[in-house]
């Protein structure tokens, strides 16, 4: 009962800061994942390093996509064609449906295929191939054939100025498709581990890479081969009052929100990076939800049928009696991804912090 009063008092002191809202270009502050040793890399270096290892360890591995031979528009495949030859690392024409179908066909023969769709916004021509072919191959052949050696790399998410067709986060469309694996890294260490895990995983995988992190995220990345767990969430900071769940860039927004909530509101937040969208770590989420009783899910994709809907529905089903407040979602609005209004569209720290306040006051 005391908490709400404290909250109200502290929030009034928060307001003046809100005017500084849009002064910085980036809507998040990057929180690096610490690792014991390694080389300083940004996310595109780490992905480059991962693909280098994947191509080196597996002679059958192929890497292709639009402009990939030249290093790709985000420089992730830079130098790989020179190192492994144009038979293994090559450009495709601008035809996403073809790229996907081609990748599935190649993978059906057991060859490791890493296909890049240049922007997540361009993945929709290949939607049919991914949903109807890749995801169902194993099932429909009774396990005789599969394209499990296939990994799609897909840059996604807000970048500050991408407007309608260079900013979308389509993970929820694919999460509706059994047979696929979907992961989203939050930084270089995770990106390398997840990509290598996906390449090795015997299911068709999609790695959505938040493109704003390619350069903005810098961490010490181990140079050796390693994989990160697929289907496992990371609890990045422990807390007892509110669970904050996000993935990709949004994780960094939530980590900042957790700090702000502690500092301004005296609220102790637990931050979970979901990492895997499909299948997702229900155990970690439910464990945390039962502990805190209050859950906020934040993602850039629109509200309706965003992946937050699935998490919220699951939590209410499994943790109903533990909840102190309805599960909240802080997301992009149900509008197309706007150009000039991007700062207003994103679930930034101010909206998330306000949700923390609301859920505490419920």
């Amino acid at each position, binding site marked *: 009962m005391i908490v709400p009063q404290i909250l109200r008092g502290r929030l009034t002191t928060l307001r003046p800061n809100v005017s500084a809202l849009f002064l910085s270009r980036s809507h998040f502050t990057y929180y690096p994942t610490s690792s014991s040793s390694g080389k300083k890399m940004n996310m595109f270096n780490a992905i480059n390093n991962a693909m280098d290892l994947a191509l080196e360890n597996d002679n059958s591995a192929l890497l292709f996509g639009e402009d990939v031979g030249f290093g790709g*528009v985000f420089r992730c495949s830079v130098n790989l064609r020179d190192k492994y030859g144009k038979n293994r690392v090559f450009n495709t024409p601008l035809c996403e449906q073809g790229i996907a179908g081609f990748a599935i066909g190649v993978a059906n023969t057991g060859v490791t295929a890493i296909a890049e769709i240049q922007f997540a916004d361009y993945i929709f021509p290949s939607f049919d191939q991914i949903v109807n072919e890749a995801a169902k191959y194993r099932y429909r052949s009774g396990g005789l054939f599969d394209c499990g050696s296939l990994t799609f790399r897909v840059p996604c998410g807000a970048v500050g100025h991408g407007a309608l067709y260079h900013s979308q986060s389509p993970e929820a469309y694919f999460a509706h498709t059994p047979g696929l694996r979907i992961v989203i890294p939050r930084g270089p260490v995770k990106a390398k581990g997840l990509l290598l895990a996906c390449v090795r995983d015997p299911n068709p995988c999609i790695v959505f890479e938040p493109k704003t992190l390619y350069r903005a995220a810098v961490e010490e990345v181990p140079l050796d081969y390693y994989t990160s767990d697929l289907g496992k969430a990371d609890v990045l900071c422990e807390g007892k009052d509110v669970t904050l769940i996000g993935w990709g860039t949004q994780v960094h927004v939530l980590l900042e929100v957790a700090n702000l909530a502690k500092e301004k509101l005296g609220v102790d937040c637990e931050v979970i990076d979901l990492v895997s969208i499909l299948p997702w770590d229900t155990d970690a989420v439910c464990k945390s939800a039962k502990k805190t009783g209050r859950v906020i899910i934040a993602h850039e994709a629109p509200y309706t049928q965003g992946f937050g809907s699935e998490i919220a529905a699951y939590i209410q089903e499994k943790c109903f009696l533990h909840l102190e407040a309805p599960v909240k979602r802080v997301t992009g609005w149900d509008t197309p991804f706007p150009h000039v209004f991007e700062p207003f569209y994103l679930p930034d720290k101010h909206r998330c912090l306000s949700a923390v306040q609301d859920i505490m006051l419920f």
Partner: protein
Amino acid sequence: MLRTLSRVSELPIIVKQLQKRSHNNNIASGKNNNNSYGMQHCRYSSSFFGLFQNAAQAGVTKTNNYATEATVKVNRPFKLHRLDEGPAEEVKLTKDEALRYYTQMQTIRRLETAAGNLYKEKIIRGFCHLYSGQEACAVGMKAAMRDVDNIISAYRVHGWTYLMGVSPSGVLAELTGVQGGCARGKGGSMHMYSPNFYGGNGIVGAQVPLGTGVALACKYKGNGGMCLALYGDGAANQGQVFEAYNMAYLWKLPVIFVCENNNYAMGTSTERASCNTDYYTRGDALPGIWVDGMDVLAVRSATEFAINYVNTVGPLVMETNTYRYSGHSMSDPGTSYRTREEIQEVRQKRDPITSFKELCIELGLLSADEVKAIDLKVRKEIDEATAFSKTDAELGVSHLWTDVYSNCLESKLRGTISYNLDHIQERKGVNH
């Protein structure tokens, strides 16, 4: 009475000859065709430069000692696919037209330069694809279009937007995301629209089936219109382009599939991306025309032919061979997959604006002073538009949730704060 000249650069010499022999209407020119312009022929009426007393006999009007009309042969011959007859290679050019085309091309060039500068100043954010080098394609096609005709294109549309009636300030303001923009700042570089212009499109190739649909509507309504569906050499490899070809041919739709071939699909050159780089032949059963896209008169002539063809026979493919000076977008320096020398060579030898200007001056359709006056006027207009685009205000935040649906499908717009926002649509579409 036509005289044949071998090439533009020889014209001054020829003029001198003509002055000496002004009593004679039949002067043949030099023989050298192997110059940098390729096989460039210019035929023009005997009255040009006001040198001849018998202009009236030649059926050409003239005022103030300047020619008002000339007949010109296109720079490079058309190539045809499944066509017995192609577009006219000899075309008329009036002084008014020369003024208009030059002004339009120069405006687009300046507009794009301004856009590039605004981008470098970080006033334009995001994606910005410049049309510099390709001006003759849009201006030539626009010159042939009638009021009932439509056009849809991809993401390199600043020039088209201007040609289709939006002021330079409307274009630049859209780029800087302010309310004076033609989409009120909500679309940005790739998304600009005006009546009969179904816009730019950010997804490679997606506009081609749309343009075919627009053509279907033209046919269904019987309004005599047609649609130009523009795409690049990169988009030519998208499957949906072939789906559109097939439907258009089956139903004989009035659509011209225009492949603006600037030789590079983003960073991949045509021969690396396409098994058949003769894009005008890629419609299979659809007839095709290859056009020199650096020659505004050739593009106009081909488009006139094509408009007539699609309205009487059926769809065809038109490839305009052109070149972009800038990178694919502003984030591409455009020099990693081609040499600077290559760009310089095209600029010097094939630039659509310089070559057209020289042609008009040589023909006497434009004087150097007139050209200068146009340049000054264009510069002033673009400078003003640039200033406007920097100072105009952005739309209010409430416009974040306008124009999502025609009206609010639920009682309040979902997903917005507290569900308390009504959906708003302030402008009625031009297609209603």
